[in-house]
């Protein structure tokens, strides 16, 4: 069974069709990359899978269950977590509090108003462990908005992982990073997502090749190829469509 399965998914905004009949299978446990030129519809596809938009037609299955009519929070509870391309966390919360939101969601501490959040020891321990994982322990009491960019990305990752998701959608996890930082992030993602299903949108081909098992290429709202990295580099259609030149 595939972790994510899209069949004949279409999405129309007004008069323009952005996604034009996408079929996509992401196998359980694999690391799958979604690449394609700007404006191909990668972000829209992410938004469809994570529930922000509803497809105009077609269906989406998560672990074999229909999900395309569910709101984001239901999809999140089914074990799908996503990060965002534009870092969009909580401006008034500290790093610790931000990660705690994710942990509380995971542990089901939601509508609790009779105890303080600080008194929940299990939550606190989990948060500290996660911060340690992404090397943000020393930043715990800093406001998220005041972190440097790469640390914000790490925080974004920590929040996403706090949900202990089976399926993780990462939207350009290394965008705007230096080569060094990108490499660190890739290592981090590799380490922390072991054993989970991963779908990544990424522009940096080095990252894609070092991280992913399979690649799908999205052009003009359609998937033109899916396969292992070496298959994709050899695919003529991909080379043609993808800016008219080779990938390397």
């Amino acid at each position, binding site marked *: 069974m595939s972790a994510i399965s899209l069949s004949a998914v279409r999405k129309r905004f007004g008069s323009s069709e952005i996604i034009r009949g996408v079929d996509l299978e992401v196998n359980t446990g694999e690391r799958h990359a979604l690449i394609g030129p700007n404006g191909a519809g990668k972000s829209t596809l992410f938004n469809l899978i*994570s529930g*922000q938009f509803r497809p105009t037609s077609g269906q989406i299955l998560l672990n074999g269950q229909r999900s395309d009519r569910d*709101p*984001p*929070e239901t999809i*999140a*509870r089914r074990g799908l*977590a*996503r990060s*965002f391309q534009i870092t*969009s*966390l*909580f*401006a*008034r*919360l500290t790093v610790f*509090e*931000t990660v*705690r*939101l*994710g942990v*509380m*969601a995971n542990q089901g*501490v*939601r*509508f*609790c*108003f*009779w*105890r*303080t*959040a*600080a008194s*929940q020891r299990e939550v606190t321990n989990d948060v500290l462990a996660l911060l340690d994982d992404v090397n943000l322990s020393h930043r715990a009491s800093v406001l998220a908005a005041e972190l440097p960019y790469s640390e914000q990305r790490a925080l974004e990752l920590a*929040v996403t992982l706090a*949900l202990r998701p089976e399926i993780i959608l990462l939207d350009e996890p290394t965008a705007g990073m230096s080569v060094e930082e990108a490499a660190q992030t890739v290592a981090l993602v590799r380490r922390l997502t072991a054993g989970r299903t991963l779908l990544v949108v990424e522009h940096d081909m080095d990252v894609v090749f070092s991280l992913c098992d399979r690649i799908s290429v999205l052009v003009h709202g359609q998937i033109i190829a899916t396969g292992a990295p070496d298959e994709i580099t050899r695919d003529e259609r991909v080379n043609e469509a993808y800016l008219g030149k080779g990938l390397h």
Partner: protein
Amino acid sequence: MNRYHRIAVCLAAAIVLLAPLTFSDRYANLAIRILVAALFATAFNLLWRQARLLSFGHGVYFGAGMFAAVHLMRANEAGLNVPLILVPLAGVLSGLIIGLLCGFIATLRSGAYFSMITLAIAELIYSLGPRWQALFGGEAGISSMRIPSMGLSFAALNEVYLIVLGWSALGFVAIRFFAKTPLGQIAYALGDNERRLQFLGYRTHAVKVCLFALSAAISGLAGGLLGIAAENVDYTVFGPASSAAPVIQTFIGGADVLFGPAFGAAILTGFGNVFSDVTRLWLLYQGLAFVVVVMFLPAGIVGSLLSSKKRPLREAIANTLAVLLCSASLIFLCESASILLSDSYASLRANQGGSWVSYRLFNIELLPSSPIVWALPLIVALAGVLVSCKLKRQEEAA
């Protein structure tokens, strides 16, 4: 702040809060109204400070609490024996129930939509109020009388003040505590980024409904407290004025500091009580103050005071001086206008064959046709502007 400071502040606060116990009805009543307004504004601000939801219809929940309390007191008169100290709970309950109901609808949308829905709900209740005789008692409202309980007669308002003080303190503590609970934290994050919260698996609508209900419940408590003090309520409590009051008070005081709304409410209620006897333009001044604060002190008075600690004293004094000079001149002009434009002045002039007649303001005889009357306030205002300009230039130079 060291320990001695802290003790001194607590002691001063205790004295101020307990002093009304010795007051006569007249001032005990004012003290009650100040506390109630402070609690109401703080409850209103729960929605804004946490979830960035701006309600323009909180008078509904306040009013619901007030009606519930007075209805319960009437039941008491008829033989039900609920001690007075528990009567405000009726306000909490009705605020909670109506808050859940209205909150469910209002929080379907955010931003300006939310504001408009809360406003529409308030308008709806306000327009229904006088129709629903059995519940709201028509335009005359319903009234009751406090019955002695727990060894106290509650005939005098300073005894009632004790109850109001106790419940208000509980309300404040509850609001403070809530901010630290998981739900409070989630609500806080919701104000920053609702979408992101949904992707963490939180049902944000439910969170908003809970927050709204809590805010409404504490507003209802405030209403219930005023209910036991006033022993009387009518549908005008649902009117635009009572919904606008917490908005104005909160943002003048400072919405993002815990005691900002309470401070704003206390100041405006206190001043309002004093100045409404002296001037008829109190509402105009309140509106002007509100706009000035929104434009120049977006953090509110308390918020600005807290954040501007590091500024030199000289600057603070100059700033205050500029504000004082400008407002003195503005007040003079407004008060003069209110006299000169009044019907009675017109008839006085007509009696004198249309010539300018002198008027009295602040115990000074003034003749509208003399240039000095108008030149002086302009000079004063100009001086204020100059002070503030000079300050700005120094700031830029530094």
